[in-house]
């Protein structure tokens, strides 16, 4: 089992508030990892540090053979030019809580944007592949709609297709169902379940304990910017050793 992502001593502060207190994490190819924890525990910030949407104040993230945002040069981390950082970021697919679909582009336009602009695919090729992905998430019929005409669940499925279009090594999900009406959560989780079954490497920040129990290979529980518990979902979710994790889980499972 080869490693896809290795985070080393990630620290992040906003002003004087220390959000992440030195996190280490390893994710293997094909693995599905769910990050759980109460609001404000820093789990979204941690995910955003992994793909450098937030620059960590300390530590670094190794993804598939290179360090995000840096080159190792004579034992020091030399910051990379923006263009090379973006190339690294495109290896990590990101799905946001609030979808962040491009409002001025159709569904199809959203999915072909990255492949055409960043990967240099021709429009025909990008569209053919995009239609395949939209088929996969059940949104092919809405290819020419604009985001404002879609429901939240539909938007999130398009957002997943848009991220997949870059053929990323790892997919990151930042609370992908938290902004959805309860009856729309299922369709998004279904798409994610299928991805997991297909062997996609996924790091999922979520409040959906049921999804974590069913789909995750490993679960991480974060509290106050630290990883308090990590292991197989059965073990972590049913018999946590850490008292604060136990109190968090008893609240969400109640």
């Amino acid at each position, binding site marked *: 089992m080869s490693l896809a992502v290795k985070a080393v001593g990630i620290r992040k502060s906003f002003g004087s508030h220390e959000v992440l207190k030195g996190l280490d994490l390893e994710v293997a190819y094909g693995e599905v990892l769910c990050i759980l924890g109460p609001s404000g525990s820093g789990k979204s910030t941690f995910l955003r540090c992994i793909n450098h*949407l937030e620059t960590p104040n300390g530590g670094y993230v190794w993804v598939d053979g290179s360090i995000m945002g840096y080159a190792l040069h004579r034992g020091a981390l030399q910051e990379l030019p923006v263009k090379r950082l*973006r*190339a690294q970021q495109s290896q990590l697919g990101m799905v946001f809580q609030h979808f*962040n679909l*491009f409002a001025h582009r159709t569904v199809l336009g959203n999915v072909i944007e990255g492949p055409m602009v*960043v990967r240099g695919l021709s429009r025909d090729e990008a569209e053919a592949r995009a239609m395949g992905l939209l088929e996969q998430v059940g949104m092919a019929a809405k290819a020419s709609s604009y985001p404002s005409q879609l429901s939240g669940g539909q938007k999130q499925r398009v*957002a997943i297709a848009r*991220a997949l279009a870059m053929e990323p090594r790892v997919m990151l999900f930042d609370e992908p169902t938290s902004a959805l009406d309860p009856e729309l959560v299922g369709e998004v989780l279904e798409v994610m379940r299928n991805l997991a079954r297909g062997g996609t490497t996924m790091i999922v920040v979520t409040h959906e304990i049921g999804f974590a129990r069913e789909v995750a290979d490993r679960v991480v529980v974060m509290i106050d910017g630290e990883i308090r518990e990590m292991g197989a979902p059965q073990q972590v979710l049913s018999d946590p050793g850490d008292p604060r994790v136990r109190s968090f889980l008893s609240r969400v499972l109640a």
Partner: protein
Amino acid sequence: MPHLPHSSPAALTLTDLPGPDVTVRRLRHPGRWISGGLVLLLLAAIGRAFAVGQIQWTVVGQFLTAGVIVTGFGWTLLISACALVLGVALGFAFGIMRLSENPILRFAAWLYVWIFRGTPVLLQLLIWFNIALVFPRLYIPGLVDERMVDVVTPFVAAVLGLGVNEGSYLTEVVRGGIGSVDRGQKEAAHTLGMTPGQTMRRIILPQTVRLILPVLGNSAIGMLKFSSLAATIAMGEMLNAAQRIYFINGAVIELLFVCAVWYLAGTTVLSIGQYYLERHFGRDAATASSDRRGFWAWVRRPAARGEA
């Protein structure tokens, strides 16, 4: 239970309730009829005053399509269009600079806005027109080497003055527009691997244009009117042409009215264009969906704040 006073409606018993098809009588608004009538009277009085005043309406009609006036209006349109293009270009350039990571670029953009928004446009026109007093020659090695008075003709001075001034306003508009595009749009583009330039061009600016289109429409309308200031620097646009005519024949008000008619015609056409442009670009924006009742509804809408 105490007896209800006479003015209050007595409690309705269920047996009193009418059927579902009961007639509904609308409330009457006599106040609206009275205020409307008063305003109509006032309008009629003003109209009559102008009809019987010392204006030779035949002279107005006669000069409305006079060659000099029509040519002048052509110049008015040309100055306005060129200045608007220049203003929009400067507005976007400096608006993007205002948000640069580089503090010196940010400062330069701030300085531009500070100077050109902080001085009267008429003064700026006069300075551009007399710029040769400061720089007698325009010399760019290998490109241009000419006397400044030959380069900065009244037309060039008018376009520069109006365009550079408009650009300082649009800089702030563009900055605000970019700032109000959701941050998530930029983040999504970055996670796809798009560079800052690609993100700006393909994701941020198209949405900014959509947001600031109403302001750009107002700019176009304003520019058409402000171009009349060029009359002061001997640019032969419409107002200047009218002035040269009334200096000779003395029909001052008549020729000013001729100008008013043409300006109104121009701004009306621009307003209609602005309506259709906004409707076209707003087709997928959530804000536009509620406002598709047609041009006349748009005309009668309450004026937006800051609308010229």
